C-alpha cells in the first residue's frame, strides 16, 4: 500500500527561497515521488528582489530579475498557481484554500510566505502590521516589481526621492538612484547610516562616501508624519529637522514575516512562523516553514537570502529522502540522527553599490583599546576612502569592516565564513589591494634567470651584450634569451640601451 502512495507537496509562496526549494525538488517530481503545487499571490515567478532598485533606476531590465523559468517548471509538471492567494489552511483535513476558489490537498505543506515591508508609525500612514501595505500616493516600499515600477515613474519625472531608513537596503536603493544620475536623500535616525552594523568611524566614512556618490544624507532624524497634498506625498515631518520636502518617500524600515496564514491555522508564531531546527512547524512533521517567514529554533528571520537558500537546499534534500507518512498513518518522530540545516548562517553585509565598496560582518563595535579577549586592528585613511577593522578572538575572525578595500573585503568574507585564522601580520590584508606588488626589488644577480622560456641568465645576456650583440635578435642567437615567449625582450632591450653610449 505505502509503496503506491503518491505524495502531494504544496508550497505557499514563490520567492527566491521557494524557487530554490522547487529547483531542488524537481528530481523527485521527475521520479514520480510526489506531485508539487506552488501558490503565489504575485503573478510573477520568483524574481530577484535584490536588484529592484536597479530596475527602478533603469539600470536593469525587469525581465532580468527572473530566477526560475516558469515554463520549464510547468513542463516538469509543477502545478503553478500564480496570482492566487492562499486564504486559509485546514490542517485537520490537510487542505489549502485559495482566493480563486481552488482547493489544494497536501500531505506535506511548506510555508515560504516571506516578509512584507514594515510601515513605520508615522501620522498619515496605515501601519497595520499584518496587512499588505496600504500606502498613499508617493509613498512606497521596494519589495515587488510593482513597487519598482512606481518608484521608476517618480524618477523618470525627475522627482526628488526621500529614502527613509539607514539600513543596507535603503542605502543600496539610494546608491542605485544616485548611480543613475538622480539625487536621492537618505533620511535615517542614529548618528551614522548602517549604525547597527558598523562602528562610528566606519559609519562616518560611509556617510562621506555616500555623499561623494551623490546621496544626500540626513542623519539623526526622528520622523513623525507624512505630509500630503491632493497629488500625494510632499514632505516628511520630523522632530528636529523640520519638514524635509520630496516628491516620493521610499520606506526602507525593515520587513516583517508574513505569518497570518500560519497563525490562522493554529501554528505558533513569534517573529516568524516558529519551527524547530529541522524547519518543522507542526507536531506531525507535515508542515514546514523557511526563509523570511520562519523563526527557526528561536532565531528571528535573518532577512538575507543566503540563509534561506541554505534552508531550501536542506529541505529539498530532506523531502526527497524522507517520505511523508501515508495519509492515514500516525505521525512519526524524525530519526534522532537527522542532520539539521546550518544554523546562524552568516551575517555578512556587502553593500551593493558601484564605486562604493563596503563589507561588514559579525560584531565590529569593539575598539582597539578596549582590552579583553578580542584583538582589534584598525587602519583608516578617510581621504583615500579606506577603512579596515578586524576583530579576532583566539585568532578567529569574529567581525570585520572593510571600506574601499575591495580585495581585502572579498577575501575577508571567505575567511569569516570559513572561520579561518588570519595572517599574524594583519597588514598583509591591506597589501592584497596593492595593484603593483613588485616581484622582487632586489637587483638581479648574474645567475638569476632572465628568460624563463630558455633559462638564459642575466649573466649570459650581459656577456652576449659585452661581446657585441646590438639587437635582441643577436642576443637570441648568442644565448637564446628572448626566443621563447618573448616576454623578456623589454629587459634585453634595456640591457642593450645601457651598453650603448648615447
Amino acid at each position, binding site marked *: 500500500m505505502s509503496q503506491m502512495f503518491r505524495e502531494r507537496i504544496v508550497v505557499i509562496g514563490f520567492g527566491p527561497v521557494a524557487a530554490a526549494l522547487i529547483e531542488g525538488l524537481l528530481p523527485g517530481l521527475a521520479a514520480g515521488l510526489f506531485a508539487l503545487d506552488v501558490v503565489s499571490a504575485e503573478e510573477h515567478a520568483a524574481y530577484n528582489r535584490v536588484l529592484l532598485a536597479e530596475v527602478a533606476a533603469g539600470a536593469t531590465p525587469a525581465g*532580468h530579475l527572473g530566477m526560475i523559468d516558469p515554463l520549464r517548471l510547468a513542463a516538469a509538471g509543477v502545478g503553478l498557481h500564480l496570482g492566487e492567494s492562499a486564504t486559509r489552511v485546514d490542517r485537520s483535513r490537510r487542505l489549502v484554500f485559495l482566493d480563486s476558489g481552488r482547493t489544494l490537498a497536501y500531505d506535506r505543506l511548506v510555508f515560504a510566505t516571506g516578509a512584507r515591508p514594515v510601515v513605520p508609525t508615522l501620522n498619515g500612514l496605515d501601519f497595520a502590521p499584518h496587512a499588505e501595505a496600504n500606502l498613499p500616493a508617493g509613498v512606497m516600499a521596494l519589495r515587488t516589481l510593482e513597487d519598482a515600477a512606481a518608484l521608476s515613474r517618480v524618477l523618470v519625472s525627475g522627482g526628488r526621492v526621500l529614502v527613509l531608513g539607514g539600513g543596507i537596503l535603503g542605502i543600496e536603493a539610494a546608491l542605485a538612484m544616485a548611480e543613475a544620475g538622480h539625487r536621492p536623500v537618505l533620511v535615517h535616525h542614529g548618528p551614522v547610516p548602517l549604525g547597527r552594523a558598523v562602528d562610528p568611524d566606519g559609519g562616518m566614512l560611509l556617510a562621506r562616501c555616500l555623499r561623494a556618490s551623490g546621496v544626500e544624507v540626513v542623519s539623526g532624524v526622528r520622523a513623525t508624519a507624512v505630509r500630503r497634498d491632493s497629488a500625494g506625498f510632499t514632505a516628511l515631518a520630523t522632530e528636529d529637522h523640520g519638514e524635509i520636502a520630496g516628491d516620493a518617500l521610499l520606506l526602507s524600515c525593515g520587513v516583517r514575516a508574513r505569518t497570518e496564514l500560519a497563525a490562522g491555522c493554529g501554528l505558533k508564531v513569534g517573529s516568524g512562523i516558529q519551527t524547530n531546527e529541522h524547519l518543522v512547524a507542526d507536531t506531525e512533521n507535515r508542515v514546514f516553514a523557511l526563509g523570511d517567514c520562519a523563526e527557526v529554533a528561536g532565531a528571528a528571520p535573518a532577512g538575507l537570502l543566503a540563509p534561506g537558500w541554505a534552508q531550501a537546499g536542506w529541505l529539498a534534500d530532506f523531502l526527497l529522502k524522507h517520505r511523508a507518512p501515508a495519509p492515514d498513518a500516525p505521525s512519526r518522530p524524525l530519526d534522532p540522527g537527522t542532520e539539521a540545516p546550518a544554523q546562524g548562517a552568516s551575517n555578512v553585509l*556587502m553593500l551593493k553599490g558601484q*564605486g562604493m565598496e563596503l563589507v561588514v560582518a559579525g560584531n565590529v563595535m569593539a575598539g582597539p583599546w578596549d582590552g579583553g579577549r578580542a584583538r582589534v586592528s584598525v587602519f583608516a585613511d578617510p581621504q583615500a576612502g579606506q577603512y579596515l577593522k578586524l576583530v579576532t578572538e583566539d585568532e578567529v575572525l569574529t567581525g570585520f569592516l572593510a571600506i574601499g578595500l575591495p580585495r581585502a573585503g*572579498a577575501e575577508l568574507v*571567505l575567511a569569516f565564513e570559513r572561520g579561518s585564522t588570519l595572517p599574524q601580520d594583519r597588514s598583509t590584508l591591506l597589501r592584497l589591494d596593492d595593484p603593483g606588488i613588485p616581484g622582487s626589488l632586489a637587483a638581479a644577480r648574474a645567475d638569476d634567470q632572465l628568460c624563463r622560456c630558455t633559462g638564459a641568465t642575466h649573466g649570459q645576456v650581459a656577456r652576449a651584450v659585452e661581446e657585441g650583440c646590438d639587437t635582441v635578435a643577436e642576443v637570441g642567437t648568442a644565448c637564446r634569451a628572448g626566443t621563447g615567449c*618573448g616576454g623578456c625582450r623589454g629587459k634585453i632591450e634595456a640591457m642593450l640601451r645601457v651598453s650603448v653610449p648615447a
Partner: protein
Amino acid sequence: MTSSAVDTRTTPTHCPYCALQCGISLDPGPGAEAREPVLLAGRDFETNGGALCRKGYSAANLLNHPERLGSPLRRTADGGFAPVGWDEALELLAQRAASIRREHGADAVAVFGAGGLTNEKAYQLGKFARLALGTSRIDYNGRFCMSSAAAAGNRAFGLDRGLPFPLADLDSASMILMLGSNVAETMPPFVRHLEHARACGGLIVVDPRRSPTAELCADGSGWHLQPTPGTDLQLLLGLAHVLLAENMVDDHYLAKRTYGLAGLRASVGAWWPERVAATTGVPAAEIRRTARALGAAASAAKTGGGGVFILTGRGVEQHTNGTDTTTAAINIALLLGLPGTPGGGFGTITGQGNGQGGREHGQKADQLPGYRKITDPAHRKHVAGVWGVDPATIPGPGIPATELLHTLGTASGARMLLVHGSNPVLSSPDAAQVLAGIRRLDFLVVCDFFLSETAAEADLVLPVLQWAEEEGTMTNLEGRVLRRRAALRAPEGARGELWIMAELAKRLESPGTFSADAREVFEELRLASAGGLADYSGVDWDDLDAGAAVYWPCSTDHAVSRIPGQRSGTPRLFLDGFAHPDARARLVPVYAGASGEELHSEGQLALVTGRLLEHYQTGTQTRRVAELAAAAPEARLEIHPATARSRGIAEGQRVAVRNRRGEVVARAALSTSARLDTVFLPFHFAGNQNANLLTAARVDPISAMPGFKNASVSLHPLGEAS
C-alpha cells in the same frame, strides 16, 4: 624556399611535447643514423614563429640518452628485469592476453592509451583493443585532460575541436579572457599570440595563482582575477549575470543562432556581483569591469574592432563540475555573440602533443574513429565496414579512465593492462590507490622508451620509438593536421608501436588487418573517419608533406591548397551554423553545486596542482634532461609568506603536505603569487613528491574528469630549513 618545404639536409618536424606542436628542424636530414649531437632548431611555423621553450630546445637530448631502453624487459623471479628478444616478448604477451581472456572474459584485458600518440597509433590502438583483444576496456590519459572541455563543446556546439579557429586569429584580438590556463609556462611560444590583446590592454587572466601568465596582465596589459579554488563556475555565472543585467548581450545573434536564453537568464539571476564576490574572493567591481569590458569589446569587434576570445584550460576544467564550468564559459561567449563569427570565439587550449587527434579516433571508451559513437548502430556499421568485420564484433562502450584504473585487479576490474605512452602511476588521481591496483594485476605491459614509474611495475616492458624516429601525423590544438617525420633510424632493439600491434594481432589471430606502416594506417584512418564529425578523408599525406595547412573536418569534397599561407579543410568552424541538426548552439543553464571535496575546513588549505615550464607531464622525459632537471630538480610547495609564517614554515623548509589519501614531502617556496588559502604543487615528480598522492578520484558526472584541482590538505613542517 619556404621553411616548411623539405630540405634534404635537415628534417622539418614538430616538437615532441605539447599541443602547440612548435615547428622544429633536426639536423641530420631524414633517415640518418642516430649520432651525437643531433642539432635541433626552432623552425618558422605558424604556431611558434621559430620560437621554442626550454623543453623544446633540449628535446633532442633524449634521443641518445643512456637510460634509453634497448630491448624488451621481462620480470624475473627475483623481482628484477631481464632483457629478452622480441619474439619471446610478443609470444609471452599474446599468450597471457589469450589465457586471461579465456579464463576471465575479454574485458579482463584493458588498454590505456595517451594523448601523445600519433593519430595512427591512437587509431590503431582503439582498433587493436576492440578486434585483437576483443575488449571494451580502453580509455586514455586524455580523460584527465580534455574530457570536460570536449563534453561541454559537444553539448553547446555539437562538436568539440579545441580551437575552432586558427591560433593566428588571436594575433589581432582586442581582448582575450583566459580561464585556468598558464601558457607562459606550459607552452611559452603561445604568448606571442597574446601580444596584440596585451597592447590593447585586453588580456584578462583568471587563475587562483598569480602565474607567469597572470603576470602578463601587469602594466596596463590587462588584469588578473584571482578567485579561491573551486569557485570558477560562480565567477562565470556572475559575469553572465552582469552581461544580461546590463543588456550587453547580442540579442540578434542569440535569437538567430542559439536556443535556451530564457533558461540561462533564470539560472544566472541569483548571481549578482556582490554575491559572487562573497563566494569567490574576486571584488564585485572587478566582476562588473570584466563583464563590461567584454561587452564593449565584443560589440566593437562586430564593427571592425579586434576579435574577442574566451579560452579555457585545465585549471577550470579539472573539477568535478568541470563540464558545467566550461559550459558557463561557453555561455558567456554565446551571450556576446562570438562563436562561429569572425569577431572571436570560444576555445579550449589542448594540452598534450596530440591531445586533439588522440581524442578523435577511438581511444576513448565510448568512441570510434572520426568522433563516432560506439553506441550508434550506423556508426558501428561504418567502422566495421572499413575494418572488414561484422559490426557485432566491435564491443560496446567501456569505462572511463579513473574507473578503469581504480578497479584494476578487483572483481569488476581488468586483470591485465597494456599501457601506451602514459605513466598512470604518477598521473592518476589518488595515485596510491592506482599503484595498488597496478600491483594487483596478473600482467602489466608498458610500452615506453624509458623505464617510467609505471614501466618499473610492469611484467613486460616493450621499448618503443621516439618522436624523431617515427613517421606519422599529429593534430595540434587548432585542429590542424601535421606531419611528424623520422630524422633518425630507429635504434637497435626498439620497435614502433604500430609494428608491435601488427605482430600481436597476428599472434592473437585477430580479425581485420594491422599495418606497421604509418602511411598505410593513415589511409585507413581517412576511410574510417569519412563522414564522421572529425572527417579526415580529404587530408592527403603528400599535401601535408608539402606544408599544406589542413584543418579537420576535411572531406574529399574540400579542395586542398599547398600554397603557403592558404588554409584548407575547415580552418574556422561554425561560420555557417553549429553542428547540431538545427545548426543552433545550445545555451545550457548550469548551477553552482559542490565542485569537489569540501575545502577550507579548519586548518586546511586548498591544493592546486599544475605545471612548471621546465617539465612535461610526469617528467619521464624532462626529468632525464640534465639542463631541465638542474633548473627544476624537485617539487616545490608554493605558499604565501603569511600562510607559511602562521604555520611556522620558512623558505626552503621541508613540509609534509597531507590528507587522508596520502602525503607529499616538498620544500616550501614562499611567494606572494599564492593566495592566502591555497598552496600549489607541480605534478611532474615521483615518489613522495607525487602531487597526485593527494588528489581525489571523484569525477565529473558528465565527462568523468577527476577533480584534480580541488584537494584539501594540511601542512606539517619537517626539520630545519636548508
